């Protein structure tokens, strides 16, 4: 009886159902906690573009949330740089925009959140603009945040993350040493056109004199190409917004606190 086909099928079904229950049960239970953890991590990444990771590491989750609330204002724009406050009747905030799912739409239809790093209590004193980026690495998605100083040209800092790049190779985009290479680089060229910053092939060269090049990661060229494309594309999408800011004074822009 034990080896009969019926028994085998019944056994398999029961085993599958029990395992399924266990997994979906734990998923339901842990879901909210995981969402909080991910939201906290997103805040850390956004702040990581403007503050050093040592400082972030020293802050407790409550401190990070408080710091974020005091220093980060946000807005959402479309590809023309026009502010968007609602879509089909539902109000939207930068935090509610899912950059990953937006990536699947055509660039003209996407929503582009912008995070503004300002002095505590004084939203008009803007230190940096933080732009979310999204792209494709070698194996899976890559994303990050780029902080531009108030001249909208010099990079204050970047953070990168990935979904499944190779540890030790493409995954090195999360290393502070690699991200620091972008500090001080410029995104606009001499003639006023958008030039972006490019990670070069190979590692170990000094590019301090070139404001548009950074040292690469040896063995991770394809990921680096993904990063370069991500920067170029998204800076292009935000270009209209950046030009608008340059023309008008920051105080005129409505921000969500």
């Amino acid at each position, binding site marked *: 009886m034990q080896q009969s086909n019926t028994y085998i099928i019944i056994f398999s079904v029961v085993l599958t159902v029990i395992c399924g229950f*266990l997994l979906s049960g734990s998923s339901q239970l842990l879901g909210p906690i995981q969402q909080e953890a991910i939201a906290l991590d997103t805040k850390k990444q956004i702040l990581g573009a403007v503050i050093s990771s040592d400082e972030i590491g020293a802050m407790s989750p409550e401190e990070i949330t408080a710091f974020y609330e005091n220093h980060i204002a946000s807005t959402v724009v479309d590809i023309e740089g026009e502010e968007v406050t609602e879509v089909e009747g539902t109000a939207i905030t930068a935090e509610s925009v899912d950059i990953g799912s937006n990536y699947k739409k055509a660039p003209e239809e996407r929503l582009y959140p912008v995070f503004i790093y300002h002095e505590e209590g004084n939203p008009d004193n803007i230190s940096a603009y933080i732009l979310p980026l999204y792209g494709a690495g070698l194996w899976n998605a890559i994303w990050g945040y780029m902080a531009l100083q108030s001249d909208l040209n010099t990079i204050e800092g970047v953070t990168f993350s990935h979904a499944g790049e190779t540890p030790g190779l493409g995954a090195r985009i999360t290393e502070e040493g690699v991200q620091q290479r972008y500090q001080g680089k410029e995104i606009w060229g001499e003639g006023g056109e958008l030039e972006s910053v490019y990670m070069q092939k190979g590692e170990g060269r000094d590019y301090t004199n070139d404001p548009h090049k950074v040292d690469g990661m040896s063995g991770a060229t394809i990921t680096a190409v993904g990063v370069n494309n991500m920067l170029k594309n998204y800076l292009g999408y935000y270009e209209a917004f950046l030009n608008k800011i340059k023309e008008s004074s920051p105080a005129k822009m409505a921000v969500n606190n």
Partner: protein
Amino acid sequence: MSTETAEKVINKPAEALLSKRRKSIVTDPLIDNNPITIQVLGICSALAVTTQLQPTLVMALSVIFVMALSNLAISILRNTIPSRIRIIAQLAIVATLVSLVSEVLKAFSYDMYKQLSVFIGLIVTNCIVMGRLEAFAMGNKPYDSVLDGFGQAMGYSWIILAVAFFREIWGSGSFFGIPVLDPLAGFIGMENLATNGLMVTPVGAFMILGLIIWVQRSMTKYVEQ
């Protein structure tokens, strides 16, 4: 007077919870039957996660949890699992447990979850886990199986922690993230003690592992058949 046909029922005293035999189930895998150094199983993760002590510790605890519970589950079910699908059934249980570990990590220790990324999932493919299920849990009682899972996982854990210890000190100059080489250099009056970049790569892990196997086998005088 009919003792020839009727079997005498002998009540053996129940085996102590930590009898000598059971203790050896737990302690053998630490040295004499170590999964990594003697049985040479589970090398893959030993090379990959051991760059630093903290993720290695999380990995070790996850493996202990998965092995103890999967051994328990399979041992309880050992008489009901149809032998034609037993590998699949074992795999289903191990995969469920590993997914549980992954979800819990994601909820309570998101940084570790990001750092360990694929390697938690790869516990499913760790030969030690499936190996012990087949070799021990399918033929032994539940409590013994838990002890075996625990013992084997401890054997695995101390080896990967040892490898991580050397790799972190020598490759990154730190211990659990705290820099130690620089203060040490200051203490003995040198400007800095150089770290060895090779230790951060799997090649370094392989070398350290080889040295540990060599030392251990010379001490226990183990010779492969």
